[in-house]
């Protein structure tokens, strides 16, 4: 593969190519050089698009998370997957939004669903779940029926009823 050859020529000895069942060429890099690798792939190998940023939870094995970037080169009609192991239950990873601004939402979703912090992301808020939700639903320890899924609604509802009661008592005092 051209991208792997180029990276080896630059002295990336630790890059490994693995064979996936879907036959997409897959490289594995260390976390420390992940951002550098993405930069090389974009600059030298023509991968001008990132199509997916997501993660896999391999709990309970360690390293627990695997961060996955899937890249597309339109000029070479080529796709590439870049995997990177993350250690710990609350890992950090470098953001690639400086290379591909389109990765913003995918990294937000990844933070929302897995709890992976992306360093250098300008606006790392939750994408799907409410901001005060407090859990990361795609983690292995998360039950599929959720942990108190109605908590935020109940809090909102309590405030709503209190507001209505305060308004009613105010109107009663005015009369």
């Amino acid at each position: 593969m051209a991208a792997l050859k180029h990276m080896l020529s630059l002295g990336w000895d630790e890059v490994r190519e693995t064979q996936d069942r879907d036959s997409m060429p897959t490289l594995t890099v260390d976390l420390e050089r992940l951002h550098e690798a993405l930069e090389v792939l974009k600059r030298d190998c023509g991968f001008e698009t990132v199509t997916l940023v997501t993660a896999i939870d391999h709990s309970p094995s360690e390293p627990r998370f695997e961060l996955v970037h899937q890249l597309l080169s339109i000029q070479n009609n080529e796709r590439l997957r870049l995997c990177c192991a993350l250690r710990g239950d609350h890992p950090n990873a470098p953001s690639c939004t400086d290379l591909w601004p389109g990765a913003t939402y995918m990294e937000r979703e990844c933070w929302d669903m897995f709890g992976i912090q992306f360093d250098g992301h300008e606006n790392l808020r939750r994408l799907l779940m409410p901001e005060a939700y407090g859990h990361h639903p795609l983690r292995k320890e998360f039950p599929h029926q959720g942990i108190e899924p109605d908590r935020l609604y109940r809090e909102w509802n309590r405030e709503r009823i209190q507001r209505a009661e305060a308004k009613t008592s105010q109107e009663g005092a005015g009369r």
Partner: protein
Amino acid sequence: MGSLKEATTRDDESGFMATRVNELLNWGRKNSLWPMPLGLSCCGIELMAMIGPKFDIARFGAEAARFSPRQCDVMIVAGTLTWKMAEAARTIYDQMPDPKWVIAMGVCSSSGGMYDSYAVVQGVDSILPVDIYVPGCPPRPDALIDAIMKLQRKIERENPLRRVLEGPQELDESGTGRLDVPANSMVETHSMGTYRTDSGLRKDQYTGRSREKN
């Protein structure tokens, strides 16, 4: 009510009809239901079909769908309600003027359906007082018309004068103040896409074949 023609065409001292106030009010209410279409997923498509000319809900006086809750009195929750959307749905319901009713359309809004999930409300009756549940995924427009007709029958049994004569009722849990007809009081299932012949046989609406169980 007596004969409308007789009451309006005689030219002596008549020109009035005798009826009961409750019946008159209920007659007006049930034949001018204005739906609030809360189309949340695929059920919304069937809801649109029901309002459109082919199924023509105007035959039951309920074609005036309005997108402002201030102008509506029956809220049709059509589709999957998520907890994130629940606050908006409850706000819309609160903004509707009394009297108001709720139809839970489809299994998602009735019970959560196949979404046994952290994100989906397991039945909108946990946040709204539901009057009619419509099964189906999604239900046919016929089923929703059936729900409208059942709602009309339910409205016939209400007692709107009670609020006038006895003052404001103690609010029920939902805050709608309709204790005269408890929510969930009329849960019925029905056979979709069938009609009954004069001899009482149930037949398929489209093929005309008998659908009686042997």
